[in-house]
C-alpha cells in the first residue's frame, strides 16, 4: 500500500498541469522584484546601507562580499532592475533569474544588519526558479523559440514553488508555538498597544484579550493556511484570510515587500488554470481554452534527478528552521539558528551595548561607543544580536591593533529586553571577545548568558562554562 501511494505520488509529480499559474507567478515575481529595486533607489537605501557605513557585518564565510566602489552599488541595483524586467517578460529567463538571484544575494550578504526573512525567501525562490522551466509559457523566450513552448508543466514545478512558500507558513506557525506567543501574547500585545490608532479596530488594540486572540489567530493562520488554500471547499476562505491578514500587517507593521510577496505567492495554491478564468471574466477571448494535458514522455525526463534534487533541496529547508535545536537556550535570546528559519515577527528585542578595550601590558582602558564605528541603525541592530556583538568586538580589536595597542582585550556590557521582559545581561562581561571566534559548525557561544525566565536576569547557561576569566 505504502509503495503504491509512493508510486502514485511520484507519478502525479510528473503529470502535466496547466502552466498558466506558474507563468503568472513568474511575471508577478519579476514585477515585484522591480518594485523592490525601485524602492531601494527611492528610499536612498543604496547609499544608506552600502555607502555610508564604514564597517559591515558579513556572514560567516562571505567576508569577501563587500560593496562595490564608487557608483558600483547603484549599477548593481540598476542591473537587478533590468533583470527583474527580463524575468517578468521571460527573456533569457534562466540566466536572468539566476543572475538576479546572485546579485540580490550579493547585496544582502554584505551586512547582517539588513537581514530580512523576505530577502531570504527571494533568494530561495530565485535559486529554485533557475531550475524550473517557467519561461515555456507566456514569455519572450517561448515566442522566440517555438520548440520551447508548452502550455503545461510537470506538476512538480508547481508543487516545488508551493512547497517553498508553504514552508514559510509552516515554520512561521511552528515558531509561534511558544510561551511568549501563546501564553503572554508577546510581542503582539506590545505591537498592538503601540498601534491603537489603527483604523476601525484600533480602539480594541488596548484590550489584552485582543492580543491573545490575534496571537492564536496568527498561529492558526500560519499553520492552516496551506491546507485551507489547497482544499477546494475552503479555498475562498483561505484566500480571503491571506489578503486580510497580510493587508493588516501592511498597516500595522513596516513589512515592505513581504506581505505582497506572500499574497502573490498564495496564488500558486489556486487551481493552476486560474489566470485563464480571470482573463475570461475580464472578457479576453483568445487562448483561454485549457491546454491539452498530454502526458510527458517519461523516457525523456531525468525523473530521478529531479526527485533527488527536490529531496535534497527541501531536506535542507526543513533542517534550517530546526537547527536552533542544536543549541541550548531560547533561540530569540541567543539568536543561534535564528536567521534563515522563518522566525517572522516573533520578537520585540532591544539592546544596549558598551564596549571596553584594555591593553593588558599597560592597563590602559578605553570605552567604545558603537556609533563611532557604525551607523545608528547598525549600532541598534548589533546591540541585541550576539553574533554581531562578537563581530563588532573584532572590528574594534583590529582598529586598536592598527593604532598600536598591544593585544587589545574587548569586553562588553550588553543588555537586552526580550518581548516585554525586564532588561537582562546578554553577554558575559568577563569574556574577552577578541579571543572568541565564529565558526561554521553548530558550536554554542558559551559567552552568551541565559535568559532566566523567573527574574529576567542573565545567568550563565546551564551547560555553560566560563570561557576565560
Amino acid at each position: 500500500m505504502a509503495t503504491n501511494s509512493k508510486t502514485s505520488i511520484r507519478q502525479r509529480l510528473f503529470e502535466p498541469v496547466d502552466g498558466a499559474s506558474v507563468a503568472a507567478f513568474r511575471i508577478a515575481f519579476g514585477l515585484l522584484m522591480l518594485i523592490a529595486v525601485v524602492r531601494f533607489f527611492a528610499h536612498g537605501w543604496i547609499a544608506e546601507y552600502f555607502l555610508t557605513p564604514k564597517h559591515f557585518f558579513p556572514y560567516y564565510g562571505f567576508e569577501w562580499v563587500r560593496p562595490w566602489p564608487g557608483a558600483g552599488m547603484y549599477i548593481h541595483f540598476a542591473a537587478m532592475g533590468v533583470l527583474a524586467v527580463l524575468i517578468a517578460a521571460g527573456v533569457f529567463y534562466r540566466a536572468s533569474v539566476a543572475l538576479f538571484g546572485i546579485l540580490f544575494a550579493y547585496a544582502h550578504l554584505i551586512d547582517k544588519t539588513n537581514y530580512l526573512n523576505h530577502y531570504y525567501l527571494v533568494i530561495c525562490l530565485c535559486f529554485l526558479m533557475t531550475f524550473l522551466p517557467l519561461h515555456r509559457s507566456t514569455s519572450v523566450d517561448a515566442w522566440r523559440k517555438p520548440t520551447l513552448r508548452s502550455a503545461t508543466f510537470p506538476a512538480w514545478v508547481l508543487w516545488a514553488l508551493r512547497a517553498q512558500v508553504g514552508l514559510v507558513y509552516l515554520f512561521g506557525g511552528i515558531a509561534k508555538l511558544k510561551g511568549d506567543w501563546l501564553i503572554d501574547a508577546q510581542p503582539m500585545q506590545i505591537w498592538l498597544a503601540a498601534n491603537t490608532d489603527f483604523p476601525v479596530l484600533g480602539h480594541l488594540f488596548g484590550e489584552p484579550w485582543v492580543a491573545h486572540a490575534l496571537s492564536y489567530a496568527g498561529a492558526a493562520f500560519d499553520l492552516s493556511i496551506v491546507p485551507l488554500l489547497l482544499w477546494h471547499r475552503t479555498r475562498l476562505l483561505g484566500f480571503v484570510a491571506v489578503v486580510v491578514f497580510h493587508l493588516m500587517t501592511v498597516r500595522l507593521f513596516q513589512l515592505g515587500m513581504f506581505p505582497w510577496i506572500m499574497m502573490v505567492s498564495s496564488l500558486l495554491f489556486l487551481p493552476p488554470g486560474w489566470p485563464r478564468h480571470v482573463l475570461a471574466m475580464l472578457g479576453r477571448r483568445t487562448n483561454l481554452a485549457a491546454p491539452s494535458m498530454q502526458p510527458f514522455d517519461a523516457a525523456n525526463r531525468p525523473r530521478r534527478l529531479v526527485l533527488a534534487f527536490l529531496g535534497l533541496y527541501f531536506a535542507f529547508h526543513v533542517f534550517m528552521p530546526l537547527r536552533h535545536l542544536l543549541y541550548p537556550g531560547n533561540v530569540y535570546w541567543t539568536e543561534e539558528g535564528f536567521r534563515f528559519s522563518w522566525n517572522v515577527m516573533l520578537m520585540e528585542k532591544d539592546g544596549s551595548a558598551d564596549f571596553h578595550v584594555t591593553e593588558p601590558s599597560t592597563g590602559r582602558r578605553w570605552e567604545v561607543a558603537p556609533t563611532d564605528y557604525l551607523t545608528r541603525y547598525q549600532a541598534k541592530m548589533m546591540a541585541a544580536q550576539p553574533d554581531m556583538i562578537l563581530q563588532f568586538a573584532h572590528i574594534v580589536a583590529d582598529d586598536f591593533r592598527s593604532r598600536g595597542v598591544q593585544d587589545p582585550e574587548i569586553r562588553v556590557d550588553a543588555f537586552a529586553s526580550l518581548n516585554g521582559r525586564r532588561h537582562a545581561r546578554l553577554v558575559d562581561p568577563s569574556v574577552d571577545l577578541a579571543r572568541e571566534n565564529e565558526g561554521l559548525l553548530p558550536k554554542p557561544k558559551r559567552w552568551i548568558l541565559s535568559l532566566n525566565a523567573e527574574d529576567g536576569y542573565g545567568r550563565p547557561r546551564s551547560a555553560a562554562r566560563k570561557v576565560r576569566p
Partner: protein
Amino acid sequence: MRALLSRWSRVAFASSFAAALVALVLVMATCAPVPLGDGEKRVVVRGIAEAVILPTLDDVVARAEAMTAANEQLATTPSQANLDAAQDAWRAARIPWKEGEAFAFGPAMDLRIVAAIDQTIDATKVEMEIVGTGTLSESYVDSLGANRKGFHAIEYLLFRGDDDADVLVSLTTDAQVARRRDLLVALSQNLERKTTELRSAWAIDGGQYITKLAEPGSSNNAYPTIKAVIDTLVNESVFLSELIANNKLGKPMGTASGGTPQPELEESGPSDNSIADMAGNLRSIRNVYLGTRTGAADRGISQLVAAQSPETDQAVRDALDGAIRAVEAIPRPYRTALVEHQSDVEAAHEAVKTLKRILATEVVAVLGATLKFNDNDGD
C-alpha cells in the same frame, strides 16, 4: 439516528473546544497589563507639549532676552558687577536651553537652530572676527558659520575660568575693545532671534509644530500615527542619554584616550558650566518622561510605560533620579573633578549609562517603539 448523534457529538465537541479556548484567552487576558488607548496617548502627548515643551521654550526666549540685556549693559558699561550679571544671565539662559534638548527635533533641526547656537566654536575664528573689518551686526553674525557664534562664542567672550580680570581687560583696554563689545552684543541678539524663531515655529500662533506633534493623523506628514510621535520622543531621550554618557561625561574622562582625562573636551569649559549643562539635559529627559517640569506628576511617557509595566516605570524613575543626583554630586568644576574626584565622575558616568540602558532596552521594548534611524522594512 447514529449519524445524527455523531453529528451532534461533533458539534458539541467543537463548541466545547471553542468555549474552552475563549475562556482560556479571557483568563490569560485578565492577567495582562492594560495599555493606554489612542485617545489617552494623545492626551499624554498634548500634556508633554503644553506642560513641558512650550513653557521650556518660553523660558529659553525669556532668558535669551535677559542675556541680551545683560550683555548690552556690560558692553555699554564694563564693570565687575555687570560682568557678573552677564555671566549669571548666560548661565541662566543655558538652563532652559539644555532642558530643551530632549525635544530638539522638528523646528530645531529644520531651522538648524541647534547648529546655529550650541556648537563647539573655534576660538581662533572668533578672534578673526574681532580683528576683522566686517560690521558686527546681528545680521552679520547670522551669516557666520556655526563655529564662531552661539552660546559658546558668547561664553568665550565672557569667561576665562576663574579669571574675570582678564575678561574685563579684554572689554576695557584691549586694542579691539569696541569690536569685542559689538560682537558680544551682536552674538546675543542673534541667539535671542534664533530662540524666538524656535519658539515661534512650535507655537499655536506661529508655525504650529505643537499641533503637528499633538495631533497625528494621515494628513499629518510629520506624524501620521501616534506611534510616530511616541517613537520620536523616546528616540530623542535615548539619543540624548547616549550623548551625555559617551560624549559629555565619557570623553572628558578619558574613555577615548586610554584613561587620560581630556578636560578640553568638556561641553562648557570656560564657564565651568558643564556639570549644570549635563544636569539640565538629564532634567530634559525626565521632564518628557514625567510630562512635567516639576518632577512630580504621573503623566508623560511614564504613564504609557506604567500601563504596560509598572516595574519598568519605577526603574526608569529611579534611574533618572539616580543619574541627576550623581551628576549634580560631581564637585565643580568638572575640569578639576576629572583629576581630583574621579570616583564621583565615574559614579555619574555609570548612573547615566544605567539610564541609557533602561531607556534603550525596556522602555523601547514595552512601548513597541521603533528606534528609528532609517525607514527600513522589517519582518
